[in-house]
């Protein structure tokens, strides 16, 4: 889970825990997430990433992830509806978008749809 806002990380963690997901690594920005992906050695099943973050955006992280793992499930959380940006993420095979504000039901549906494809 990658988000620069601590409140958003806590909310996503609460949501995932309630769904029974208990192994969650939280990163505060794209660079921290990238380092974790490169060096942790843990198997990652899914990345949930905020789009708009300082330093490295969600789109830039997606680019780096796709360079190494074209199939990694990657959900982009965004308030961004800019057509070009959405198109760019689509070209990088983003698995799904969640638009803020999201309800837990919407999030759960997206999450299950993405994981069903794995």
């Amino acid at each position: 889970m990658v988000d620069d806002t601590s409140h958003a990380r806590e909310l996503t963690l609460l949501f995932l825990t309630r769904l029974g997901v208990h192994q969650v690594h939280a990163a505060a920005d794209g660079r921290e997430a990238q380092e974790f992906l490169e060096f942790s050695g843990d198997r990652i099943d899914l990345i949930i990433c905020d789009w708009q973050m300082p330093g490295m955006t969600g789109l830039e992280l997606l680019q780096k992830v796709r360079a190494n793992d074209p199939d990694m499930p990657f959900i982009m959380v965004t308030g961004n509806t800019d057509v070009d940006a959405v198109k760019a993420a689509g070209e990088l095979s983003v698995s799904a978008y969640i638009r803020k504000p999201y309800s837990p039901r919407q999030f759960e549906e997206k999450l299950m749809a993405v994981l069903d494809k794995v």
Partner: protein
Amino acid sequence: MGRAKRPTPPGPPHHEGRSRNGENIDAGESRAEEDKDPILDGKVLDDWEDFLPADQFRELIDAQVQGARECLQSLKIAVENGALDEVGELAHVMKSTSGSLGMSQVQAVAADLEAACGEGHGAIAFEMAPNIDDAMTKAINALDKRYGVQ
């Protein structure tokens, strides 16, 4: 990507304008005004309330309001200091914090403020900043009507 002026806030479907106990959520606002500029996204709130145990939901709402108030206070200080970058960063946090639990109007104002800061429109941003205070007051009042948060 950003916007310096405030359009009609984008899309979360507006709630029915009534809380579960039947009271008007946005009392004092006309329905037309609510539809243009919803204070709360009732559907998001209802879904979270259904999703979480009551005590966790209550904690979430309280934390939301507390976090938003603290952020607002920091934002006021940043505005007073003329710190445009800091205002932009705090607007980004407020956008995320308020939006995630359905404080739609605060989210929209914060998004516009963040965009104005990002584009370097300092004069517009500093003029716009007090709107967050107003939106936050309305949102907290609306949450108070629903859940008694004050």
